[in-house]
């Protein structure tokens, strides 16, 4: 929390700060995701820049009060550019002992901790493996602890409504939210409106929630111990209409825009898998756009049905995560061989094997590059923020259709579930998408290629006189008939690689941020953009000459990559894996010496650890 000098004149001191990090934690049943989202949305509408990080247990409904059943939601809001949900938190709201136990270490010393004292029962303390009550044993002395009997207050607020006990207790998260709204000087209007819309048909629920929210707000207002409130002013953001969006929704919408702009119907063949399933959920809602969402029997049927749809002339997509990508390898090879457009979205999660399914990681890069038999190069790109998942989903479709090739789009659990403000784009704001369709009456040679891009022509079933056969056997370079001829195979192997290499001519050059040259270049790719950017920013504030180079295009790499790498004395590649992008860079630019910073903890980078490492390398 960076404090500012200005302050205004409510009964309590109101400090103006530039940014603040808040974390709500509690039991899976405590509604922490909803609470966090409401706070984020309200702040977004107020004009803050924002980044969120939901963190839920892998169990569906873990036993109440258990350590592994804790659900959390972290949000950073700011009047300046916010790229991460923050390392450590300024306010921790803990609805139960288990939440406190597992999250206290994230709270900055001296900062505010709000707890629901009603939940600190002997049973709950035991479940959280506390020997003594932390509210009593002095272990919280370093924090501004605000003890509130939230359950009691909630019951009190609703006592005249005649609701059942379960419903009453379920709304205590709104008491906490009300308090936080007061502390951060936020209006309750948006949340009240939300109740009204969401529970249109249940006016008692609207009333109850509103009551509790207000009770929390007014309780904080009148409470002695809260002596200061904080104000985070609006960020200076581009003019326009915004909404909060997470990476999975943005991805789904990017696909929608590409379908509309290209004129090809969207086909999604997929099999559910965390954390990619929400893309399938989202698109399933929008069947009125003529989208075909097909939940297949497995990942292999997911991708092969998409290949079938692509053959028939749809814009075909398949979505998955790590283990699912492994299953799709053979079929990706087929799509590459028959040179059909196909987008494979892989939302990376913690591996290997089933690994840490609800956690984030970047460890599928080499699988995306090489996870299939034979020489089968395809395009690999990666989104780097929740909102640019929209752009790169769109770009994946554009590249697939224009270059007639499968494209793997990598995102990860962190940006897929995290939200940020998105300046809404219209479909017409996006670059146009052309295609290689051959029409009735035109001459069709299945493997005739565009001279520049080397993309082949595309004739789809239903077009008279263009009947032809494709297949996974090696094929003659022009007719497409099966060929075992040695030199033809050599030629085809090379041209398939060259076709992907030439995509360099169609993608933007890359630029380092913060510095164009200097002492250290911090290199990243994909979902670590926000984290690396925050750390490099801080380094520059501290006077170091550090640049940030972030890759969205991985195969092929941007044309000018080597030039940029050469402008810095040292290069460090930072990845949430054991070192994968660094291998790709080494293979492309062996002349550069790369340091590495690798993390595999299921968590994003923290600014602190990055800065420590950078200083050590310098």
């Amino acid at each position, binding site marked *: 929390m960076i404090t500012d000098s200005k302050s205004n004149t409510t009964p309590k001191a109101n400090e103006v700060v530039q940014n603040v990090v808040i974390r709500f934690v509690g039991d899976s049943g405590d509604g922490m995701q909803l609470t966090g989202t409401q706070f984020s949305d309200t702040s*977004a*509408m107020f*004009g803050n820049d924002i980044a969120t990080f939901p963190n839920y247990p892998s169990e569906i409904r873990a036993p109440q009060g258990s350590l592994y059943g804790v659900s959390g939601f972290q949000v950073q809001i700011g009047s300046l550019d916010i790229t991460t949900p923050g390392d450590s938190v300024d306010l921790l709201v803990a609805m139960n002992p288990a939440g406190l136990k597992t999250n206290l270490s994230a709270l900055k010393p001296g900062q505010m901790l709000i707890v629901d004292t009603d939940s600190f029962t002997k049973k709950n303390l035991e479940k959280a493996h506390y020997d003594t009550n932390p509210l009593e044993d002095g272990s919280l002395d370093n924090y501004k602890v605000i003890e509130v009997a939230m359950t009691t207050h909630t019951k009190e607020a609703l006592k005249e409504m005649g609701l059942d006990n379960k419903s009453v207790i379920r709304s205590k998260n709104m008491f906490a939210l009300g308090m936080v709204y007061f502390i951060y000087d936020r209006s309750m209007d948006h949340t009240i409106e939300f109740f009204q819309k969401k529970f249109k048909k249940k006016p008692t629920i609207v009333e109850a929630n509103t009551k509790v929210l207000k009770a929390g707000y007014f309780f904080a207002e009148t409470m002695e111990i809260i002596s200061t409130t904080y104000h985070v002013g609006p960020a200076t*953001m581009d*003019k*326009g*209409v*915004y*909404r*909060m969006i997470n990476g999975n929704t943005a991805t789904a*919408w990017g696909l*929608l*825009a590409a379908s*509309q702009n290209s004129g090809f119907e969207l*086909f999604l*063949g997929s099999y559910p898998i965390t954390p990619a399933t929400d893309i399938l959920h989202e698109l399933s809602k*929008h*069947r*009125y*756009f*003529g989208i*075909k969402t*097909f939940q*297949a*029997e*497995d990942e*292999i*049927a997911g991708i*092969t*049905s*998409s*290949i*079938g*749809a*692509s*053959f*028939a*002339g*749809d814009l*075909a997509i398949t979505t998955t995560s790590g283990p699912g990508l492994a299953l799709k390898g053979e*079929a990706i090879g087929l799509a590459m061989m*028959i040179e059909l457009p196909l987008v494979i979205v892989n939302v990376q999660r913690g591996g290997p094997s089933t690994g840490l399914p609800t956690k984030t990681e970047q460890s599928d890069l080499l699988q995306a590059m090489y996870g299939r038999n034979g020489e089968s190069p395809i395009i690999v790109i990666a989104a780097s923020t929740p909102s640019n998942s929209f752009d790169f989903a769109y770009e994946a479709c554009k590249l697939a259709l224009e270059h007639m090739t499968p494209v793997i789009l990598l995102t990860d659990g962190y940006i897929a579930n995290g939200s940020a403000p998105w300046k*809404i784009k*219209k*479909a*017409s704001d996006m670059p146009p998408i052309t295609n290689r369709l051959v029409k009735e009456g035109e001459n069709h040679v299945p493997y005739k290629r565009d001279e520049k891009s080397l993309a082949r022509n595309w004739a*789809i*079933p*239903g077009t*008279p*006189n*263009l*009947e*032809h*056969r*494709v*297949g*996974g056997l090696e094929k003659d370079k022009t007719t497409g*008939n*099966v060929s075992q001829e040695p030199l033809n195979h050599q030629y085809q192997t090379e041209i398939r690689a060259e076709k992907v290499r030439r995509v360099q001519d169609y993608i933007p050059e890359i630029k380092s941020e913060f510095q164009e040259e200097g002492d250290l270049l911090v290199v990243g790719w994909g979902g670590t953009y926000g984290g690396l950017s925050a750390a490099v920013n801080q380094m520059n504030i501290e006077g170091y000459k550090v640049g940030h180079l972030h890759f969205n295009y991985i195969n092929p790499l941007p044309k000018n990559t080597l030039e940029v790498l050469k402008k810095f004395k040292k290069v460090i590649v930072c990845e949430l894996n054991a070192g994968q992008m660094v291998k790709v860079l080494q293979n492309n630019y062996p002349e550069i010496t790369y340091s590495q910073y690798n993390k595999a903890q299921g968590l994003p980078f923290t600014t602190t650890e990055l800065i420590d490492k950078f200083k050590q390398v310098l």
Partner: protein
Amino acid sequence: MENTPIKYTFKDFQSDQEVRWCPGCDDYVILRSIQKALPETGVKKEDVVFISGIGCSSRFPYYMDTYGMHSIHGRAAAIATGTKLANPNLSVWVASGDGDSMAIGGNHFIHVLRRNVDINYVLFNNEIYGLTKGQFSPTSLLGQKTKTSPYGNTQPPFNPGELAIGARARFFARLGGNVPKDMTQVFIEAEKFKGTSLVEILQNCVIFNDGCYTKYTDKAVKDEMQIHLEHGKPMIFGKEKNKGLILKGLKLEVVNIGENGITESDILVHDAKEPDMTLHSMLVRMEYPLATGVIRSVEEPSFGERERELVNRVTDSSRFKTVDDLFFSGETYEVK
């Protein structure tokens, strides 16, 4: 487009590729029968798609002058599902072997049947892996000696029709590999059926499993050992048309017409359209005589029809006409 149907001959469906099966392989008979059936279906050539996996039989698409894909082993049914969903106007065919369909492709096989995707599925059952030179398949007999079962196969086989009906098949037909005329007829029926039409051909592989069906298909015994079922017709067979099937409790029994007071009117009449599969299953499992022809043909909405009903339903009531409508819906805010 045009309404005057083009009159094709089988030659219109022959591609320019040399056919590369072994001389004497039943695959030739199937190829020619399909090439003869297609002109009778009224389907336009450019609307026909053949999709296959890998195997001798899966070379099929190369020999058809239609759109086609020779894909990867076992996945033809899933690919065909995508093709048909993408463009419901197409006449989509799968050509697949017993290994391709029921070994590696078993999952897609049962699911395409469950969903009732409107495709025609030709199962080339030679009870062996041909292309890889003679390993047992999921339809090989117990005890059968092959390269991977030199001491006899220990895995009891599937009966494809039985598995298919267990997976809810609505259309199932079975034919020997040496009856081109019957095949042509059945393929025409299969194409007309809306839903997954599964046609099993008892295909002789002259190299690795020669004669595996001789006891049923040999010209000399065929009429005695097979009963060719036709919807609405009594279940009569035999060279002299003097044998028939009756139901005794839950068993099918062969009787001689004219003996023991049995007349034609005692014989069961084949009802391929009966939704209850009990009798169809019994026919599929019957070992003597072997049931051939269209055993089951029960219309029910295809997957595509259900999907289109859904899309129509939601499209009418949708607030969103373009993706922009969606993007700007709900909780947006403006920065000025």
